[in-house]
């Protein structure tokens, strides 16, 4: 082999630096520093807070299980559960027609537009805010909470229902239509079988979600355990607050198990 003059091969970059991405990360980091300073979140405050936190945790534990407190709590919890159940039931019922009329592959364009606007408005406001408005409209108590959660249920269930319908296989529906079936029959035997499993899934999820929110609407007057919780909090009855929290967590865990079981039965 003859000696050959070394040829310089230009070095080839295997991994080009992704500048837009790097800049984005740098921007994110800078933003964090900026935001933290704007909010006056400093390390000093944080550390002081930790010290305070230790004292606070001390007062939370052990939870207060005095019988009169537990009775008070029981009432509130029951009411929260009732609010959740009613809100979910009515919410599901109303969501069915609204979801159907929002599916672009099922109804004419103008109708689906109306449906989607309804859903968008229902989703825009946090249930707490809606609860405040309803408390003004129908007074303190469970009714305001129920109505508020019905609205938030519609925003969730109807939206996902419409999406499930839009994602279904239209050819299966067309085949049922070709047998001469009426619109309703096509719905029952062509559309519903395709979407029912998902519908049950997110309805069960919404029951869960309503249970979580129903424990909160009491803070603004919507009934349920929220009011008891907030009162105890404001009175610095932190051990009672802890009891209530534990009870809420327990109920939610039970509800998650229940919705899992529901999904299996209807799958």
């Amino acid at each position, binding site marked *: 082999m003859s000696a050959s003059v070394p040829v310089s091969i230009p070095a080839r970059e295997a991994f080009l630096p992704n500048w837009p991405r790097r800049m984005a990360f740098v921007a994110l980091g800078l933003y964090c520093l900026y935001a933290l300073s704007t*909010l*006056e979140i400093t390390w000093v405050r944080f550390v002081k807070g930790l010290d305070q*936190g230790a004292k606070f945790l001390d007062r939370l534990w052990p939870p207060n299980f005095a019988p009169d407190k537990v009775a008070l709590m029981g009432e509130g919890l029951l009411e929260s559960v009732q609010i959740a159940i009613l809100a979910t039931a009515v919410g599901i019922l109303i969501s069915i027609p609204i979801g159907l009329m929002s599916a672009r592959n099922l109804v004419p364009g103008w109708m689906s537009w109306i449906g989607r606007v309804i859903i968008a408005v229902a989703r825009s406001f*946090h249930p707490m805010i809606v609860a405040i408005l309803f408390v003004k409209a129908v007074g303190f108590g469970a009714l305001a909470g129920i109505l508020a959660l019905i609205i938030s249920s519609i925003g969730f269930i109807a939206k996902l229902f419409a999406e499930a319908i839009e994602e279904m296989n239209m050819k299966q529906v067309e085949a049922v239509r070709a047998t001469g079936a009426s619109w309703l029959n096509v719905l029952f035997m062509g559309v519903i079988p395709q979407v029912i499993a998902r519908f049950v899934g997110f309805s069960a999820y919404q029951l869960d979600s309503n249970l979580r929110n129903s424990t909160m609407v009491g803070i603004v007057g919507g009934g349920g355990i929220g009011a008891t919780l907030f009162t105890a909090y404001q009175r610095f009855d932190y051990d009672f607050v802890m009891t209530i929290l534990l009870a809420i967590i327990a109920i939610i865990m039970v509800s998650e198990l229940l919705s899992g079981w529901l999904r299996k039965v209807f799958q």
Partner: protein
Amino acid sequence: MTATSSPVQPVAERIWERFTPAQRMGRFATYLGAVAAIVWSFRQVEIITEFLYDAPEQTLDLFRRMWPIDWAYYPKGVHDALIETFHIATLGTLLALILGFPIALMAAKNITRSTTLNWIANFLLVASRSVNSLIWALLFVAIFGPGAIAGVLAIGFRSIGFVGKLLAEAFEEARPGPIEALISTGAPPLSVLSKGYWPQVEPSFWSVALFRWDINIRESAILGLVGAGGIGVALDSALNNLYWDQVGLILLVIFAIVIATEFVTSYVRSKII
């Protein structure tokens, strides 16, 4: 027609049942349970019917009081609070992503093989989710005092459960093929994680981050009701003072920011995912 001593037996009718007996029982039990629950709730709950009938008029009265909207209040009372809400939501989401990522790794059954660790991680995630962000806010306000720190921590800690669960699921759904390939080259675990799992999980990660940020904007807006900073504080004071025109302004602003967030998230989604 031949005479026979025994009557002609008809062909046995075949039965079709839509559900097996077990399924029927399950469905019946569910329907029964649901109806019972609804009836029980309805009878126990205190609904004062006079208030219900009064509702339309009260609602109208409410809207009448909100109009005209007090636009002048915006620069003074609302603008800074709005910015604060945005910061709370964003920092809170970032916190949740940073803290939730390792917990998700611990909860993913294909990454952490120890069932005890899986269980602990899942418990942490469930606990985080079960406590409403408002309650987290109450807790942190009690510890750190009113203000944005409580808000950021409340949003962050609540979101860990959401982010962690979805991330863990994304990890568990990663295809084992590329992972196997990397392990067989002798790559160390951290490299397997960053070059094998992460590229598969990354789209889900950003999708979850965007989704949670969207929800957190909504949640941050109300944390102020318990003193955790943001526009909720302005809302709370306006409500307490019964300044309905200010309330109207704040609600409109919240509505606008929710719509804006939707646009931003769908735009970013289409670009990245």
